[in-house]
């Protein structure tokens, strides 16, 4: 049984579809013969060019959600398409805040399970298997669905490389959400954009992250200063996010962001499996930690056994003196 129709849940970014949307469309092209997207928002037409350029021939437009969270209305719209006979064999969903909501809702509506935390897909003779990192990425689990589709895969960012196909803009087809009653009662009443200087954490070529070894919340400013000097982004281990030192948005790891920068600098981070799974794919890894036995050193290209609070100020001075 060949895989014919692959749908990608497409999210809108600052300018066109988000990077992970394009990654998933690129992968979808190598899995199925027909690639289509599902999107929502007031101006889905503005995504059509970017989606088409990466292989989507059609974008099903759920439309403006009127302040509702996407999970319920988008899943309802997809379920309605499936009920109407237009069902994908495979649905690729980005592992984002909204993507996971849509996948969970849709899973119940279609009574189909979901495979999550996917970092690789292998299509072999019409059968698709998925790969999942385990124990911080030291092992790879391969899994597959045993029942009927649509098969829903929730995929982590940076699992694939986006490449344009040069396709024409996707055709926009209205796919409004049916009324979902009380389940769709949550409303966004205000949005807050946090000011960010420098690149996004998951797109930055350099990521400098801090952990418990910094000793106190106040010392996180060393991480921010080094990140700024290297034109990178500041990340954090779960331990210091849990402790309330820095907002959740900075968290790198299983629960947080996946990053694959040119260089990742881990400062005072022991390297729990929770953290490693989010940064192990970095091209180069530098680690500073007092404990020579810390697991972070097992993935480091350069490991400094020492106090981050001594090494960081010296490093910042050295970089400043280079001008």
């Amino acid at each position, binding site marked *: 049984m060949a895989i014919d129709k692959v749908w990608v849940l497409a999210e809108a970014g600052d300018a066109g579809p988000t990077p992970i949307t394009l990654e998933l469309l690129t992968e979808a092209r190598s899995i199925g013969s027909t690639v289509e997207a599902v999107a929502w928002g007031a101006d889905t037409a503005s995504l059509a060019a970017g989606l088409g350029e990466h292989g989507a021939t059609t974008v099903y437009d759920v439309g403006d959600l009127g302040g509702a969270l996407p999970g319920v209305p988008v899943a309802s719209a997809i379920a309605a398409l499936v009920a109407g006979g237009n069902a994908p064999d495979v649905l690729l969903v980005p592992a984002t805040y909204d993507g996971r909501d849509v996948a969970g*809702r849709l899973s119940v509506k279609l009574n189909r399970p979901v495979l999550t935390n996917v970092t690789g897909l292998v299509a072999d003779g019409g059968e698709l298997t998925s790969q999942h990192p385990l124990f911080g990425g030291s092992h790879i689990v391969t899994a597959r669905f*045993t029942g009927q589709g649509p098969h829903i895969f929730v995929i982590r960012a940076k699992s694939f490389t986006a490449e344009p196909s040069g396709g024409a803009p996707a055709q926009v087809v209205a796919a409004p959400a049916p009324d979902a009653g009380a389940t769709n009662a949550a409303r966004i009443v205000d949005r807050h954009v*946090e000011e960010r200087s420098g690149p996004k954490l998951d797109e930055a070529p350099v990521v400098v992250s801090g952990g418990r070894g910094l000793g106190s919340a106040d010392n996180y400013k060393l991480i921010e200063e080094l990140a700024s000097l290297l034109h990178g982004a500041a990340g954090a281990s779960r331990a210091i996010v849990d402790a309330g030192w820095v*907002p959740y948005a900075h968290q790198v790891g299983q629960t947080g962001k996946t990053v694959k920068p040119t260089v990742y600098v881990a400062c005072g981070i022991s390297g729990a499996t929770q953290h490693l799974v989010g940064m192990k794919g970095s091209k180069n890894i530098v680690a500073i930690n007092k404990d020579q036995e810390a697991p972070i050193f097992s993935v480091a290209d350069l490991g400094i056994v020492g106090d981050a609070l*001594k*090494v960081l100020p010296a490093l910042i001075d*050295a970089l400043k003196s280079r001008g």
Partner: protein
Amino acid sequence: MNVVVCVKQIPDPAAPGSLDPTTHTLDRAGKLILDDSDAYGVEMALQLAGNVDGSEVTLVSMAPNGEVSGLRTALAMGAAKAILVSDDALAGSDALGTAKVLAAAIKRAEPDLVIAATESTDGYTGTLPVQVAELLGLPSVTFAKAVSTDGTTVKVERQTEAGYDDVEAPLPALVTVTAGVVEPRYPSFKGIMAAKSKPVDTLTVADLGIDPAEVGSAGAGQEITDVSAAEARSGGEIVVDEGDGAQRIVAFLEQIKVI
């Protein structure tokens, strides 16, 4: 206000994890503890319940072997009672099967507010709470970094890529909280003693009126076909800082042309 918290008892994450060699499922045979992620949900529930008169916090969990040690931890923090679904038929359940069981158990507690962690520390599929909400017909607000309620409406600061959104939902509703949403309390000695006599209602799949064929490995629509060691990163250079650590990092950054 009835507040229900979904809690999971997991193998100690500090111990090296292992997989059952034949089923490839996580080995949960040893002692289980309260998932750290859930301590935030329990604390959040206790605080919200404390602000609305006549409120009570009920724990709902699913575990093999009637395991209750993690539940006792959460009861010691202050939850009033627990519902534990424990049944051999549940072994090998996927997230959807688990969600069906938990939803049926949660329904018994007649919840106004259901709280869960965004994902568990061990399995981390991260879809279960929303599946539960859909099964119960509740609205859901995920990735909460702040939660408040007057017993009628729940107000949430929901994490977004750009910052956060203020989201409101009428109760009953389900909310998932991120770690760090509140500072979990440590159980007091008095709390630990009191927890020993708090009710834990242990139920089977049949008690919930669920067909055993829908859950466990029988009902799972997915399977693990292989587990293999990932390609290890080749060993790097590990040096003890003799005051030259910063210079070594500068040299490395130059070598890879980052500076």
